[in-house]
C-alpha cells in the first residue's frame, strides 16, 4: 500500500473532523472492548494463560532458526513446498511464479496482513492475475480500493449505506442492480457473488495465524469460513506467513488460541480454526493438489537482537487498537501504513524507518492500556519510547524539540538552578492566569490551548510546597 505514515498529523486532523468515522471507531472500541472484558471475566485462568503464551513465544523466538527448519521438514514430508523470501519483492515474485505455473487467472484470498505488508494485490493485478478478497470486510475495502483500517475488522470505517452503494455499483455486472439496505441482504449477496469466485479460482491464498513445527501445519482462524472455501476448492493452496508465526506443538497452539479469540472479538473460540497440512492425500475427494508456504522475513530477523524484539510475540488480535484512545479517535487510516494503533507504532518504525514513521510512536499518551490488554504482554509503550529515542538519536526529531529537551536536561541536572527556574515559572504562570486562574493561550502550545484553557499554577513550585509541608510536620 502507499506509504503515508509521514502524513500522520494531517491525516489525524482530517479524521478528527469526520463524524461518521468517529462513530465507527467509537463503536468498535465499545463492542470489542466489552466483549473482551466479558470473555476474560469468564475464564479465571486467563492471566496465567497469558504467562504461558508469552513463555511459548519467548522460547520459539530464542530457537527460531531450529523451529523454522523443523517446520519446513514437516511441510516437505507431507508433500508441501516451502519458499523462503527475505524481502517483499521476493515474496511477490515467488507468489506470481506459483500462480503462473498453475495457470491461475483468478486467485481467491483469505485475510492476510502479510499480503498487505508486501503489497500483493496491486502486484498481481499489474501482472494479469485477478485477486479476489473473500473475507467480507476485505472484500468491501477491495471494492472501495482502500487499505484496511483495523487488523481484524478491516472495513470498520465503512457505514452500511456506503457498503450498499459499493455493492450496487460493483455487483451490477452480475445482474444485481437493486440497492440493498439490510445487513442480512448485503451479506447474502456477497455470499452469492463470492461463491462463484471460489469455484472459478485456480489458486487460493491464505495467511496463517500460526505455523506448527510438530506437524508442518498452517493454521487460520476465521468466523466466516471464507478461508476454508479459499483453500479447499481451488487446485493450488498457497499460505503466506511471516517467520515469527511458528509455534512448537498442538498443545502450544491450543494455549495461544485461548487467548487469541478472547482478546480479539471476545469469543471463546472463533468459529473456524483450520489446520492445513500438505496437499490432498491419495483418495481424498477434495482439497488442493498443491500446497505452498511462503515464509517472509522482511527484516524480522534483525528485530530479534534489538530492544523491539518483543513485538515478534504479537498474534495480531487487535486488542491494543480497540483499547487505544488515540486509535479510537483517529482510526486506522491515519497511521498511513499496514499496521495501525499501538502495535503499528511499535513495529512500523522498523519496517519504514524512524523518519517515515516518526509520528506514530509520538501519537501516544502512554496511558498503558495497550500493554495491559495485550495477551502477549508486549511492552508497547516501552517500545514506542525506544523509537522516540531512536528518532532523537538520528536527529529526526524536529530541531526545536531537540533543543528544548537538551535545555531541560541541562537544567534538570542542576537542582539549585532548576528550583530557581521552577519557582520563577510558577510565579509567572500564576500571574498570567490572573484572577480567573486559567491561561487561554500559551506560546509553543497553541494546539493544546486552542481546545481548552490551562489551569494556572497557584504561584508556588512543588519543591516549595513540599518544603513548607515538611517544615510544618516538624
Amino acid at each position: 500500500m502507499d506509504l503515508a505514515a509521514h502524513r500522520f498529523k494531517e491525516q489525524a486532523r482530517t479524521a478528527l473532523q469526520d463524524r461518521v468515522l468517529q462513530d465507527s471507531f467509537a463503536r468498535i472500541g465499545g463492542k470489542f472492548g466489552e466483549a473482551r472484558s466479558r470473555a476474560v471475566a469468564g475464564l479465571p485462568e486467563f492471566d496465567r494463560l497469558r504467562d504461558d503464551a508469552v513463555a511459548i513465544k519467548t522460547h520459539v523466538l530464542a530457537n527460531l532458526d531450529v523451529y523454522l527448519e523443523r517446520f519446513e521438514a514437516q511441510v516437505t514430508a507431507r508433500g508441501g513446498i516451502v519458499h523462503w523470501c527475505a524481502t517483499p519483492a521476493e515474496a511477490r515474485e515467488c507468489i506470481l511464479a506459483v500462480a503462473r505455473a498453475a495457470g491461475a487467472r483468478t486467485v481467491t484470498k483469505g485475510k492476510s496482513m502479510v499480503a498487505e505488508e508486501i503489497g500483493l494485490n496491486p502486484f498481481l493485478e499489474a501482472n494479469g492475475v485477478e485477486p479476489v478478497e473473500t473475507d467480507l470486510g476485505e472484500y468491501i475495502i477491495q471494492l472501495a480500493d482502500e487499505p484496511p483500517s483495523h487488523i481484524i475488522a478491516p472495513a470498520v470505517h465503512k457505514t452500511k449505506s456506503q457498503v450498499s452503494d459499493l455493492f450496487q455499483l460493483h455487483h451490477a455486472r452480475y445482474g444485481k442492480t437493486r440497492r440493498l439496505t439490510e445487513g442480512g441482504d448485503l451479506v447474502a449477496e456477497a455470499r452469492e457473488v463470492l461463491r462463484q469466485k471460489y469455484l472459478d479460482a485456480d489458486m487460493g491464498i491464505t495467511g496463517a495465524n500460526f505455523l506448527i513445527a510438530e506437524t508442518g501445519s498452517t493454521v487460520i482462524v476465521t468466523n466466516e469460513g471464507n478461508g476454508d472455501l479459499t483453500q479447499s476448492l481451488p487446485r493450488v493452496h498457497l499460505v503466506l506467513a511471516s517467520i515469527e508465526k511458528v509455534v512448537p506443538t498442538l498443545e502450544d497452539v491450543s494455549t495461544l488460541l485461548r487467548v487469541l479469540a478472547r482478546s480479539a472479538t471476545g469469543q471463546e473460540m472463533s468459529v473456524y480454526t483450520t489446520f492445513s497440512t500438505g496437499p490432498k492425500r491419495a483418495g481424498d475427494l477434495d482439497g488442493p493438489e498443491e500446497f505452498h508456504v511462503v515464509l517472509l522475513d522482511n527484516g524480522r530477523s534483525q528485530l530479534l537482537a534489538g530492544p523491539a524484539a518483543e513485538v515478534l510475540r504479537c498474534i495480531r488480535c487487535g486488542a491494543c487498537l480497540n483499547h487505544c484512545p488515540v486509535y479510537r479517535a483517529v482510526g486506522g487510516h491515519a497511521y498511513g501504513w499496514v499496521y495501525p494503533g499501538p502495535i503499528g507504532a511499535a513495529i512500523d518504525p522498523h519496517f519504514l524507518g524512524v523518519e517515515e514513521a516518526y509520528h506514530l510512536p509520538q501519537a501516544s499518551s502512554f496511558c498503558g492500556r495497550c500493554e495491559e490488554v495485550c495477551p502477549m504482554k508486549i511492552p508497547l509503550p516501552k517500545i514506542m519510547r525506544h523509537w522516540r529515542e531512536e528518532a532523537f538519536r538520528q536527529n529526526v526529531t524536529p530541531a526545536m524539540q531537540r533543543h528544548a529537551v537538551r535545555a531541560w536536561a541541562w537544567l534538570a541536572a542542576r537542582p539549585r538552578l532548576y528550583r530557581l527556574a521552577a519557582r520563577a515559572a510558577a510565579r509567572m504562570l500564576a500571574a498570567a492566569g490572573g484572577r480567573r486562574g486559567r491561561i487561554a493561550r500559551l506560546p509553543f502550545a497553541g494546539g493544546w490551548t486552542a481546545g481548552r484553557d490551562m489551569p494556572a499554577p497557584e504561584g508556588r513550585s512543588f519543591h516549595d510546597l513540599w518544603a513548607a509541608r515538611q517544615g510544618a510536620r516538624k
Partner: protein
Amino acid sequence: MSGARAQILQAVRRGLDAAGSGRPAAEAAVAERLAARARNLVPARARLPVAAMRDLFAAKAMAANATVDRVLAADLPDALLRYLGDRNLPPSVAMSPDFALDPYPWGRAGLLEIARRRAEPADPVSVTPAFAGIAETGTLMLWSAAERPTTLNFLPETHVAVLRAGDVVPALEDAWTRLRNALGTGAAEAARPFPRTVNLITGPSRTADIEQELILGAHGPRRLHILLVEDED
C-alpha cells in the same frame, strides 16, 4: 530460493547472537519440546463429571448459535428428518461416506434421500460425523480423509454433525490426544500422517463486518445442527 533460505536462517542466528556452525543446545531443546508435547495450563472449566461435561458442551455449542439435539442412535434418522421438516429444508442430504455413519437405521426414515459423496455447490444440507466435541468451548473437531471430504463442512447452507456422546472431551488438548491415538502416533513407523485438514468448528459461519452487526451464514453454513448420540459411549 535456497539463497534466501540460508540468508534468513543466518540473519536469525545473527539476531540471536548464535552465528557459528551448529546449534546443538537449541537443537536439543527443540527436539525435547517436540517430543514431550507437554500441556500448558488447561482451564479447569470442563473438568467435570461426565454428564455435566456433556451438558457444558451442549450449552457452549448453543451459546455459539449451534443447535443441539440429544438423541438415541435408533432415532437419529427420524430426528434428522424432523429437523429438516421443521425448517422447510428438503429431505435430501449429502452425507460423508464415512462408515461411522453406516450403523444408523437410515432405511426407517423412508423419505430421506442420501448421497454419500463430497459436497456439490447446490447441496442444501450435509451430514458428517464429528470426531470429537470439546466441552470447554462447544467446539467440534473434524478431520479429513478419503471418506470424510472437507467440503461437506463448508459448502452447504446447513451442516448436520453427528457426535457420539462418548466422543465429548473436556478440553482441546484431550481432543489432540485422541487424534494422535487414532492416527497411531505411538510408533512413528506405523503412524498415519497428520491429516490434510483438521477443522475446529464452533457454531455456524458469521460476520460482523458491516457496522458490527452479527449476521449468520457469511460463507460457510448458516446453520450448524449437532445430533448428540446419547447412547454411544
